[in-house]
């Protein structure tokens, strides 16, 4: 099921949104302001080439506010390249990427986006508080607001006690949580996460899942790539599967036939096999 | 793998081939190098000590001229005349090409070539040189001593450095005790130096009447040293010191006869 057409966000229409330019309803019927009436992410026929290599070839998908989308695929499928285009680090060679109706490279659009990379060794000489204060400054946020958000975020990601330790003493999982905190600092409407579950212990994964669900309840959109099929199946509303730069499957997770477990894994393997 | 093998082969060739090539080029007597002198500096620097010593003497000379680099100095017309007048005293390199815009020295054709304005030279000549030419004298001459001390520490056989230091101490600072200490230390490291022996006599002579006898004795010992070393074998500076010592002896005899 792919859903773009006629200049309207088909996905948003399909989940019951009324895009009359004045009001928009999210997937649970909650009202949203006109500024969030656009798709959170709209990718239309995007191609991205690096020399003679097509990392992404003809990708189209859309993500609505209040939706969590899982982006799956093998290594080198084009997931990270797609993510970089969504956050404005790369321009497509062809096609169009828009975030909340605007150009992703526009700072005003990026102010509504939070991003966490796959692996990041954050500044070793800073502690978690200073890291968030730094990113808060980069986002142009007021110092008082940053401080309040810092306290709140460190608590929610479980880093309050380690907040004053230098980041070079952090474990991989702790760095990952610090990364989540910085991605959420500016209260983004769109959260883009690259392999967010890497390095997290089971308890942290549960908390993180709850965090993402709470963001969805608030009408935020979440787009993440992952190799963790179990987590993806538990969290996502829809998934897209990439292979060799092509999107070989898009659909709602609830449409997968239920038999008690590993539906997504079976679908993943089957889709990749059929796409050979 | 192939790159590593090639690199190893090249390194092995260099290790084996270069020393034998050097032996052919430099002659057997140049290899291996023999360290002259004792101590860590001799081992670490070898013959480079001489170069270092000379460079430090030049630095002292630069200090004498108020910090100006003596290979390249700026002067107004008046200063140019001053240097032309005192050229013999200071051994300025007036006949050599100078990179400064207003330098008095230099061949005519080079000055013509520099007719085009060089903004970088304009800036350098104004930032890196004083507006007036200065010489250190009197007690301020003590600023030269550390550089001369460093020069003889680097190369204890640099007789010019010893004599310059003694000159600065005795003639400029008017501290003959210091000058004698310097000369004594120099002679301890260079017992076969006629110049240093002569210089000791000169310092004693400069002290005046009370030291004339001891000065004469030193001049005589300098001439005896020169004779014992063989006058024909002496370098020019040493022979000059031998001759000057003779003149001083004559002068002292003349004065004492009065």
């Amino acid at each position, binding site marked *: 099921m792919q859903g773009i057409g006629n200049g309207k966000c088909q996905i948003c229409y399909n989940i019951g949104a009324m895009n009359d330019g004045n009001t928009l309803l999210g997937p649970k019927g909650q009202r949203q302001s006109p500024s969030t009436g656009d798709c959170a992410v709209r990718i239309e026929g995007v191609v991205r080439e*690096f020399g003679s290599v097509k990392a992404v070839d003809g990708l189209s998908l859309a993500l609505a506010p209040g939706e969590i989308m899982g982006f799956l695929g093998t290594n080198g499928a084009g997931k990270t390249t797609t993510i*970089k285009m969504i*956050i*404005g*680090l790369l321009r497509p060679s062809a096609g169009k990427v828009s975030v909340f109706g605007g150009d992703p490279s526009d*700072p*005003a659009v*990026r*102010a509504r986006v939070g*991003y966490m*990379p*796959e692996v*990041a*060794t*954050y*500044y070793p*000489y*800073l502690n978690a508080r200073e890291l968030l204060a*730094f*990113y*808060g*400054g*980069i*986002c*142009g946020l007021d110092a008082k607001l940053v401080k309040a958000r810092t306290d709140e975020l460190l608590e929610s990601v479980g880093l309050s006690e380690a907040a004053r330790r230098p980041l070079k003493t952090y474990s991989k999982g702790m760095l990952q949580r610090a990364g989540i905190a*910085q991605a959420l600092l*500016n209260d983004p409407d769109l959260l883009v996460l690259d392999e967010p579950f890497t390095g997290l212990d089971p308890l942290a994964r549960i908390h993180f899942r709850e965090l993402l669900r709470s963001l969805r309840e608030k009408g935020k959109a979440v787009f993440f790539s992952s190799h963790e099929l179990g987590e993806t199946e538990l969290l996502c509303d829809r998934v897209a599967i990439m292979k060799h730069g092509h999107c070989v499957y898009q659909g709602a997770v609830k449409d997968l036939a239920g038999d008690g477990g590993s539906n997504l894994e079976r679908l993943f393997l089957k889709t990749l096999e059929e796409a050979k | 793998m192939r790159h590593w093998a090639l690199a190893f082969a090249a390194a092995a060739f260099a290790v084996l081939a270069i020393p034998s090539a050097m032996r052919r080029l430099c002659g057997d007597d140049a290899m291996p190098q023999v360290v002259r002198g004792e101590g860590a500096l001799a081992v670490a620097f070898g013959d480079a000590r001489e170069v270092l010593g000379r460079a430090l003497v030049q630095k002292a000379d630069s*200090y004498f001229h*108020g*910090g*100006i680099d003596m290979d*390249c100095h700026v002067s107004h017309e008046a200063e140019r005349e001053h240097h032309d007048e005192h050229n013999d005293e200071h051994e300025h390199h007036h006949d050599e*090409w*100078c*990179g*400064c815009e207003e330098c008095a020295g230099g061949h005519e054709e080079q000055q013509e070539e520099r007719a085009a304005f060089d903004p*970088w030279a304009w*800036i*350098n000549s*104004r*930032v*890196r040189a*004083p*507006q007036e030419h200065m010489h250190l004298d009197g*007690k301020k001459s*003590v*600023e030269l*001593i*550390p*550089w*001369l*001390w*460093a020069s003889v520490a680097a190369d204890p056989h640099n007789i010019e450095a010893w004599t310059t*230091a003694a000159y600065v*101490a005795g003639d400029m*600072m008017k501290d003959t005790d*210091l000058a004698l*200490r*310097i000369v004594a*230390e120099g002679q301890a490291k260079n017992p076969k130096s006629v110049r240093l022996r002569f210089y000791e006599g000169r310092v004693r002579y400069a002290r005046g009447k009370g030291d004339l006898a001891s000065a004469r004795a030193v001049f005589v010992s300098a001439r005896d040293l020169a004779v014992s070393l063989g006058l024909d074998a002496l370098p020019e500076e040493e022979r000059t010191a031998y001759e000057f010592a003779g003149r001083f002896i004559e002068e002292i005899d003349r004065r004492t006869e009065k």
Partner: protein
Amino acid sequence: MKTAFRQFKALVKLSFLELWRRNDIFALVLLGLALMVPLSMASPFGADGASRYLDEAALLLVWGFSLFIALGSGQRLLAPEFEARTIYPLLAKPISRGRLLFGKYLGALAASWSALAFFYVLFVGSVLLRGGAFAAELPQALALHFAFIALAVAVSLLGSLLMSASANCALSSIVLVGMFFFGRRLPEYADGLNPALAWLVKAVYAIAPHAEFFDMRQRLVHGWGAVGWPVFAAVLCYALVYIAVLLGLASLALRRRRL
């Protein structure tokens, strides 16, 4: 405007914290003390009263250490961000590449200048303790040295975007130190070469950053007095223009850098 100010402030604070927490400065100060204390206790030929050689040695150390800090600060601006992959969350924030580059540069500048100020406080304090004094040349010397450090950071920043860290440090050091000691002699060397090499040397003379313009050490040590204000202004303008060109090239390099 407020956003830009907050962004620059955050970037400056980052560089500042990193420099002072790395303890490089303190290591250099200890090294300086290890070199200067024995030197000041030396009594050449037993003669006391010489102090200019100490001032010159101290100033040479200040220049060497500040250059080390500046080149290191410039190198650590962006290259480590790419290596640690922190460039991605950074550029994903609402900040343009140009503003990021300039903010980073300001940060390295603030850090390097703070280190330089610290070194000069130690230097001036040591001179005053020995009974020395400074005149009008000190503020000028400080200003030119600060300008040189700004230039050195810009050189290192551009180099960090074009080559590896070790190559950048080596090349930047060779260029700046080489020009510092030999820059003004290049036309002289060129005269003795064949036409092709002479042209190359003259091109280097014309284009390379003339670090020697900023060197007022001899003025400070020997009390030559202040430089004429037109020359002083000319050197500062030279620094500003050169830095602008370097930052422009760095901005181009960053734009073309594959993320």
